[in-house]
């Protein structure tokens, strides 16, 4: 028996990292929101690695924070180790990563959700999406309850028709033995949504008491912790940090894997789903990098509450007996007790080309989605999409313009643009190389790039916004001061230069010019910069980077100008591609299917050639000219 329950503005399906951000964004924008989860004990669960951030993913978290999302704040509260990666490289690739206490992370997020006004949590399985005339009307749960609503955000993660597999062992469950969701896929298919089947995997967890850490290298956290959130005061989160450990596989390990590879469901054909190329299992690595005699293995604590250690770098779907042999061949793991087996998981997700850049389905009004359901992988990728989907579902209900972030503005923009434009047939992972303009998209300036947008949407408070404005002013005036402060070739200056192995001055120069020297920094010049005011570390960082890399930044900005030219050529939604002469059939079909927002986006659709783009450009110029004439 079905019956009608209470109405909501926004329904969020799934309380993983995408669902939590989506629900919080929607509720914080004052919309009556309900968040469904299959188990209240798995809210914001981290079923795979016990860390947040890392190369390029750290950027995503800081961007989420700059827009008013929760992930950064939550990891700041619950981290047990923090590290800035790639510090020997340029500032564009510095990336934050923090080890989390998994249970604390989950509990803390649940606490925030439960105490957010306008937000209700509900343990129930959503089995049906209700729509009329291709417009969302509500959802139905397994018990038959109907929740009428204006927008739905699907964040089902890896739960749809999930199967967990290692060797010949198959469990029809979601991650960690949690119940799979076996009905929603059919409902979506009946709405005409195209589904994919992907797979991903996780390594074993091993009891720390069975590990010999003396055979491993200790990996410490940073002494000075940089918080993820721009709102967190670093002083407030200082704590004693827990170490991780590094060890390596060896030829013996690889031999064991090779000898048993036929029993891997990936190679035997039992797994049909496509896995992530960039997050490979140890089997994949042994096959792909056959010439490498070892691979890194990081041993990471799952939390303070447990002895379980996560064996990063060795995800696998080999049978249990092989897993024992394999892990025990690694130095320090000779006596390893496996608490949880490694496994691969297969699940249903969508072809994300069905989405607009707002993450709303093109064909169903009011249906949004985010996270692994959209074909991505990773907590951070999920959270980023969840946030954008949550904001845009709210904007939709409020009858406002969606928030769309482009490739030149944020990794979030790159992530979403790639998902909805480029055809991918494997779980999408964020990577540094995917961002063309990464010198501008640094983790250190995410607030400057995005907080204004978060403010305009309504997720950033007036106070926080004013602080940002003030920060920008301070950065700018300090930069101007440095560009205009001249220092002569006097004794003090020459001494300082000599101390820092910098060539001596022949004539006077500006402080900014000195900062541009590779061997010098803003901080080093303190002695000869008499009028310097005391500034906070984050302002100094911006001033230093902006001046030091000025030339590169300018050149990258020019590349962005080029990009924007095509991006700003908007294709009117009503444009009839059938009326455009000379388009090739394939291009016409793709364009009709994808309805790109701009010429720029059209040019990134595979199957649309430069010649097609030019035809379109010509037609559009003509079309717009005619339109403007009609108006006059």
């Amino acid at each position, binding site marked *: 028996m079905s019956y009608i329950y209470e109405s909501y503005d926004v329904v969020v399906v799934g309380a993983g990292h995408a669902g939590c951000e989506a629900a919080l964004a929607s509720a914080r924008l004052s919309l009556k929101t309900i968040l469904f989860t299959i188990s209240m004990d798995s809210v914001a669960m981290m079923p795979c690695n016990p860390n947040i951030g890392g190369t390029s993913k750290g950027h995503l978290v800081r961007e989420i924070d700059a827009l008013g999302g929760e992930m950064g704040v939550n990891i700041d509260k619950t981290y047990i180790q923090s590290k800035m990666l*790639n510090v020997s490289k*340029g500032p*564009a690739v510095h990336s934050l990563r923090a080890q989390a206490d998994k249970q604390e992370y989950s509990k803390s997020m649940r606490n925030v959700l439960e105490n957010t006004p306008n937000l209700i949590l509900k343990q129930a399985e959503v089995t049906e999406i209700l729509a009329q005339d291709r417009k969302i009307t509500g959802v139905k749960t397994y018990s038959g309850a109907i929740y009428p609503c204006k927008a739905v955000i699907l964040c089902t993660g890896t739960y749809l028709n999930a199967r967990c597999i290692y060797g010949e062992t198959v469990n029809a469950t979601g991650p960690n033995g949690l119940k799979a969701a076996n009905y929603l896929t059919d409902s979506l298919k009946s709405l005409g949504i195209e589904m994919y089947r992907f797979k991903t995997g996780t390594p074993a967890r091993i009891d720390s008491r069975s590990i010999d850490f003396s055979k491993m290298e200790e990996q410490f956290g940073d002494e000075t912790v940089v918080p993820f959130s721009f709102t967190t005061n670093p002083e407030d989160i200082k704590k004693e940090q827990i170490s991780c450990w590094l060890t390596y596989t060896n030829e013996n390990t690889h031999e064991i894997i090779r000898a048993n590879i036929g029993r891997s469901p990936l190679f035997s054909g039992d797994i049909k789903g496509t896995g992530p190329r960039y997050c490979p299992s140890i089997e994949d690595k042994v096959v792909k990098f056959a010439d490498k005699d070892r691979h890194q293995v990081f041993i990471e604590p799952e939390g303070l509450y447990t002895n379980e250690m996560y064996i990063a770098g060795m995800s696998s779907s080999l049978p249990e007996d092989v897993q024992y042999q394999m892990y025990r061949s690694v130095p320090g793991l000779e006596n390893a007790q496996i608490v949880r087996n490694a496994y691969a998981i297969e699940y249903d997700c969508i072809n994300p080309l069905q989405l607009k850049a707002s993450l709303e389905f093109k064909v169903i009004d009011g249906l949004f989605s985010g996270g692994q359901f959209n074909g991505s992988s990773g907590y951070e990728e999920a959270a980023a999409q969840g946030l954008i989907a949550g904001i845009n579902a709210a904007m939709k209900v409020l009858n406002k313009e969606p928030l769309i972030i482009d490739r030149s503005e944020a990794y979030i923009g790159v992530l979403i643009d790639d998902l909805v434009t480029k055809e991918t047939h494997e779980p999408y992972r964020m990577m*540094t190389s995917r961002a063309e303009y990464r010198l501008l998209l640094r983790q250190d300036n995410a607030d400057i790039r995005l907080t204004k947008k978060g403010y305009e949407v309504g997720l950033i408070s007036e106070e926080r916004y004013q602080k940002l404005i003030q920060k920008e002013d301070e950065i700018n005036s300090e930069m101007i001061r440095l560009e205009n402060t001249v220092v002569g070739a006097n004794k003090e200056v020459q001494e300082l230069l000599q101390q820092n192995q910098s060539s001596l001055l022949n004539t006077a120069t500006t402080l900014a010019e000195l900062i541009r020297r590779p061997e010098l920094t803003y901080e080093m010049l303190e002695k000869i910069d008499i009028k310097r005011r005391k500034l906070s570390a984050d302002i100094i960082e911006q001033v230093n980077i902006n001046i030091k890399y000025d030339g590169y930044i300018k050149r990258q900005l020019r*590349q962005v100008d080029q990009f924007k030219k095509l991006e700003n050529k908007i294709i009117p939604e009503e444009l009839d591609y059938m009326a455009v*002469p000379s388009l090739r059939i394939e291009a016409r079909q793709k364009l009709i299917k994808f309805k790109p927002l701009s010429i720029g986006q059209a040019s990134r659709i595979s199957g649309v050639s*430069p*010649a097609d783009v*030019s035809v379109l450009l010509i037609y559009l*110029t003509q079309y717009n000219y005619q339109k403007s004439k009609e108006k006059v």
Partner: protein
Amino acid sequence: MTTDTIAAIATGLSNAGIGIVRISGDDAFSIIDSIYKPKSGNKILSKENSHTLHYGYIVEEGQMIDEVMVAIMKAPRTYTRENTIEINCHGGIVVVRKVLETVLKHGARIAEPGEFTKRAFLNGRIDLSQAEAVCDIIHAKNELMLKNSLNQLRGTVLELIKDLRMRILRDIAYIEAALDDPEHISLEGFDKELSEHVQEESAVIDQLLTESRNGKIIKEGIKTVIVGKPNAGKSSLLNSLVGDERAIVTDIAGTTRDTLEETINLNGIILNIIDTAGIRDTKDVIEKIGVEKALKNAMDADLIIYVLDSSTNLDENDEVILNLVQNKKTILLLNKSDLEQQISYEDILKKTSHKVISISIKENTGLKELEKAIKEMFFEGELSFNEDIYITNERQRESFMSALESLKLVNGSIDAGMPEDFYSIDLMNAYESLGKVIGENIEDDLVNMIFKEFCMGK
């Protein structure tokens, strides 16, 4: 739309006669005011009436560059519907270039190929039906255009550029891969390797630049094919157009067994003239190859000049040729008008709708008419021109230069010990600049390429 001011040489690369520098855009008048000096008095062109012609000098830093006639045309009654200036220069191509450079120095930008026409289009001077016709030819023409612009770069040069781009891309990919997978891909010592690569690549581009300066790279014009039966006078026609004894001319039919190609400049219109073997049914194997080649050439010609020997009767070979040229832009020449006529002008008019001219190459009569006919076809838009040689040259030079500049910056970054991730910014710029040279870059550029189809200097 941008309203910056553009300029280009509107005439072809000719060593003789008049060269025109055309300027279009908001600043056209302020630019001409700052470089034009009247013969006497202090005439200021922006104060003069539209559509008038003025005698004077182009002067730069007190130095006279050329004696000129300047046509001034004020918006909107101009081809582009913008302020337009045409400077008629007299001193040959070197001076014309110098005048252009002066104009550029005073704030104009070098026009992209076809940009004048593009502006005419954007400003509504050309109507929709014309533009749609453009759209229709894009796909047919675009491929061809691309091919043509690629052909301009002689095969080896094209391969060189492609290879350069591949090498740069490989280095970019390596850096990116190492950033994403530092465990498996090491950048240890890579800067040294990259520095060597960049130096090699720069040397190649330097070489290309030198060659393009000599004008070796680009050679393109209206593909004009001379066809006819053996001994109709095709080679003589080519020789008289070119002005030297390039083709072997004998009285023996079938002497031109292969094709000969020459570039001539007909008052600014560049013709790539191809002389072909006489078309006839033949058993001679080598001659047969020549005939087949002639037919193939004729098929993809922009313009066919069909030479008939009016002193002999029409036969089945003529029928074949008449059929061949039926749907092509063609001019028929009734040669040997000095001899006794077997075919009359009237006879041939009944057989074709093409223009027919009676000439005698030997007596040097009728050639002026031929030139006039070609010019008319060209200016009435019947013949289109693939490239403005000078502009293309300039554009490619600009792209080469900026690629070179970007590579220099990469080297600078390496020397300064910058982290590897900085290299890719300038490597990418170099890659894209080279892409522009061979037309593998989408940007607004492709649109401009379409418009460059119209005609030279417009």
